[in-house]
């Protein structure tokens, strides 16, 4: 009897429900700002509006991947399973954000650069970021023993983040990128820059804040709860098999 009860979803904490509602509302609000309030870019036209998701999703991925590093370090120090579940949630949410970043960039590049994809260093590094965390998930799936899995993946999560940072750093100092930089000086040969007017800033800042904080935290919390339930059901399955 008690076993089945374990599988019943625990009621969502009030905080989580509030966060979920705020995230949904915030998303709608930033969409509205980006689509209707901000002015149309003179050179690029409507496609420029994709930027209000493109850039925030990139930074949001860092919040999530950062959580993976913190979760990994704390798991290694404390051996509390919860930290590993947070690390896993960080990877999945961060990977989703990184893919959104890649996809929106590609859609934008088609009319502006006249190609879906180019081996520009910036694009390459974004792709590498996705590959590293895809490798994380694949490695994780390949380890049977649970405590070994948690140990290994905590270490891998740390190295993954270090690699992403060093790759970005290396790429940054390469002058040959054509990717525009909106904040700070664009490289000389950047194609597709636009002015950061007050309208752009007004649409960008709320969106950036949303993707940096509320969005990853809410999604990771849901993913964390799902993992907790998955592990409970695995445990029941094992008990049933060993009885």
């Amino acid at each position, binding site marked *: 009897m008690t076993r089945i009860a374990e599988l019943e979803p625990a009621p969502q904490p009030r905080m989580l429900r509030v966060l979920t509602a705020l995230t949904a509302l915030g998303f709608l609000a930033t969409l509205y700002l980006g689509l209707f309030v901000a002015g149309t870019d003179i050179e690029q036209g409507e496609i420029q509006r994709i930027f209000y998701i493109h850039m925030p999703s990139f930074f949001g991925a860092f919040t999530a991947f950062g959580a993976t590093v913190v979760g990994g370090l704390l798991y290694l120090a404390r051996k509390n399973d919860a930290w590993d579940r947070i690390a896993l949630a960080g990877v999945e949410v961060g990977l989703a954000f990184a893919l959104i970043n890649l996809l929106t960039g590609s859609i934008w590049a088609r009319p502006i650069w006249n190609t879906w994809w180019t081996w520009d260093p910036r694009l390459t590094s974004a792709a590498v970021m996705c590959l590293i965390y895809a490798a994380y998930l694949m490695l994780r799936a390949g380890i049977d*023993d*649970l*405590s070994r899995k948690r140990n290994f993946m905590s270490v891998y999560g740390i190295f993954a983040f270090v690699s992403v940072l060093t790759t970005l750093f290396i790429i940054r100092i390469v002058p040959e990128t054509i990717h525009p930089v909106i904040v700070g000086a664009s490289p000389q040969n950047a194609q597709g820059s636009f002015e950061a007017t007050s309208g752009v800033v007004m649409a960008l800042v709320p969106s950036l804040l949303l993707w940096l904080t509320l969005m990853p935290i809410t999604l990771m919390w849901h993913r964390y709860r799902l993992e907790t339930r998955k592990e409970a059901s*695995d*445990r029941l399955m*094992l008990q049933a098999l*060993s009885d």
Partner: protein
Amino acid sequence: MDDSAIIEVEKLSKAFGLLPVLQGLNFSIDRGEFVMLFGANGSGKSTLLRLLSGLSKPTAGAIRIGGWELPREALAVRAQIGLVAHRPLLYENLTASENLDFFGKLYGMKADERQERGRQLLQRVGLSRRAGSLVRTFSRGMKQRLSIARALLHQPDLLLLDEPYSGLDQAACDLLDELLLEAKEARRTIILSTHQLTRAPEIAVRALLLSDGKIVFDGIGDRRSLSDIYRDSARAQST
């Protein structure tokens, strides 16, 4: 002080991921004691020995060896422990004497000490003539004997043996019995796990019987009395 407990185990539990293997073990073993660890396959014998050797960390509970707490003070304990595991833990591409020499270095032994002790042990386990042969060419029994030599190399206070009789022929079994007797006389503490009650000595020894991750018997017994207990516990489990 010599008679104080070398091993103290309190409320020791170990789970592999979600599967509990050992549940709340309590026992202590005195210095120089000879303990047989009985149990069916999968009862948690190997896991217990791995925990005692510091190779694996408990999920809950405490282990103290020679007063040092595992796993926190494992480093202090390691030099006192010799383990004969399921697998021989030898390098196939090295000779018998090279293997012993390598492990001697890891235990910080001096060159002449390594040489002397290695030669002595190889002779004792009857491998002198094969000292220069690659371990790859050894039979299961020879590997097992070399593995025992490796475990005794650094003169450990505590000797842990996991199913040491498996794969040994009669002569090798007798040799192992002799070695164990010698180790016992040298006041080494010995824990030996086996699932075969026929290996229990005629004389009475301390026995721990593991079943389903719990200690169901802890006491002195000889082969006959242990057989009865073993059978009873197996019957109790099947019902």
